[in-house]
């Protein structure tokens, strides 16, 4: 009731910035609104977010946007330059490159989405548990983390894919396995600074279990730096996926994966530049967008800039 009244009389802005919120929802909304305002001030980050939003729209509407079937070959129409019928030209099998890039955005989102869903929770769980309990648990978990960190990411992913067999799902698993250790490190460092603060002591004295403290009190404070790191890592994940695709260990032909496209286009780089340039540019723009977004999020979410 109260919230409705506030909405009508004071308008949205006043409701969001109210000093005395009437509900937990309003309090969170106000907080999110202030964060959004701060984020909007960073033009480049907004640009990054915009590019990612466009990418998502393209992926969702791929069947509508793409003029041709991405995998249908037409040998008679191969290696056509840029024109109004084929915006980005055609490749060595006569497939429309624009359509392939549009459909390829789905694969890209699929890869980064799944990697984030797998790697980030594993990282935060390992990190907070190790940081909170310390001692032998910490030592064991962190040494395992160190083993994963000791190998270069792409080499380790290569080894896993070779063992599991090539394919996009295996590429995702391989990238996830190699991405979580840095997240665990970050979460552990944050946890160690948080676990001795008075508000954790207070909830301990109230008899809260370790699980409750980690999940309800420590993890929410580790999330911001983790979200920033994951966003900044997205670029690297895209590049690793593209790299695996390029080496023939990721998505298999004829699926329109951007990395695989650059790989198959490299033999034609001198005479038919668009084969490699178009997917390469797509990789570049999306990676850049994630980096810009990550930088913007850092300014908004970083707990150290909280006042």
């Amino acid at each position, binding site marked *: 009731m109260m919230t409705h009244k506030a909405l009508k009389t004071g308008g949205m802005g006043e409701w969001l910035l109210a*000093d*005395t*919120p*009437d*509900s*937990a929802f*309003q*309090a969170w909304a106000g*907080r999110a609104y202030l964060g959004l305002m701060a984020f909007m001030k960073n033009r480049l980050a907004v640009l990054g977010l915009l590019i990612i939003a466009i990418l998502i729209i393209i992926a969702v509407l791929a069947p509508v946007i793409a003029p041709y079937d991405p995998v249908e070959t037409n040998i008679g129409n191969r290696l056509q330059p840029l024109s109004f019928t084929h915006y980005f030209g055609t490749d060595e099998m006569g497939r429309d490159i624009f359509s392939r890039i549009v459909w390829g955005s789905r694969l890209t989102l699929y890869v980064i989405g799944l990697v984030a869903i797998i790697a980030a929770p594993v990282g935060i769980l390992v990190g907070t548990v190790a940081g909170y309990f310390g001692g032998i648990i910490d030592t064991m978990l962190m040494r395992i983390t160190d083993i994963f960190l000791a190998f270069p990411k792409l080499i380790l992913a290569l080894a896993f894919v070779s063992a599991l067999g090539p394919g996009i799902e295996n590429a995702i698993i391989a990238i996830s396995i190699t991405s979580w250790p840095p997240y665990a490190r970050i979460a552990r460092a944050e946890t160690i600074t948080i676990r001795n*603060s*008075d*508000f954790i*002591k*207070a*909830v*301990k*004295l*109230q*008899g*809260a279990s370790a699980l*409750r403290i980690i999940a*309800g*009190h420590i993890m*929410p*404070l580790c999330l911001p730096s983790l979200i920033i790191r994951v966003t900044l890592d997205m670029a690297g994940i895209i590049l690793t996926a593209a790299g695996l695709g390029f080496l023939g260990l990721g998505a298999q032909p004829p699926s329109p994966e951007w990395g695989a496209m650059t790989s198959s286009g490299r033999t034609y780089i001198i005479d038919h530049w668009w084969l490699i340039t178009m997917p390469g540019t797509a990789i570049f723009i999306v990676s850049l967008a994630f980096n810009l977004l990550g930088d913007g999020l850092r300014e908004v979410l970083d*707990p150290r800039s*909280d*006042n």
Partner: protein
Amino acid sequence: MIAVENLNVFFGHGQTRNHAVKDVGFTVEKGESFGLVGESGSGKSTVLNCISGLLTHWKGRIEIDGVRLMQTRNMAFCRKVQMVFQDPYGSLHPRHTIDRTLKEPVKIHRLGDANNRVARVLDDVGLGAKFRFRFPHQLSGGQRQRVAVARALILDPEIILLDEPTSALDVSIQAEVLNLLQDIRREKNLTYILVSHDLAVVSHMCNRLLVMNRGKTVETITRNQLKSGAISEKYTTQLLVAGKGYDRTAIDQFQDFR
């Protein structure tokens, strides 16, 4: 109600081992407010942390209601003993609303009726409903400390441990929080142990106090002794003089007590 005997605490190992609390003992009656006074490094907060169970590697005997406490504490202990911390900025979770902070203990102990309990306890500390859904950063230092008191009260404890509850606050706010603490103690017949470096605050709140220096007990005195100046220990006298403000001749006579 509370009895502490031969309490010893060591920090560190080998060469860097530090005997932080040496054979400290005292008793507190039910409904009493007992003060622990000392300068930094005197071990006064360490004693409090042993009683609360935040520190586990102590030796000695701590009894509450005649029951000897072990190193680990159970849920019933949590309902009986609560604590208020010094820094109002560090003792509230920065991303939880006041409502969530206060509901947490109710949920942990499955007491039910969380909404009414929160409303009642906010009333008890003089904050009222309009603060309920704010974040800590939207409150002043004094308001945060009231929330910390409310959090300690929501489980209806019998003992509250106060670790320098007002030393981070402005004097006018300190007066308000001290008044609140006294009202609540009288109303609910609570037992307090108050740790402070400020003799005036302790003498305002407590009838008996223990003076500590470098982990050792200096003496246990009553408020009346403090008022009349009937103090035998030089260390306490020096603390008393120092609390009265800047006096050039008195300062030259200060000693370093070991």
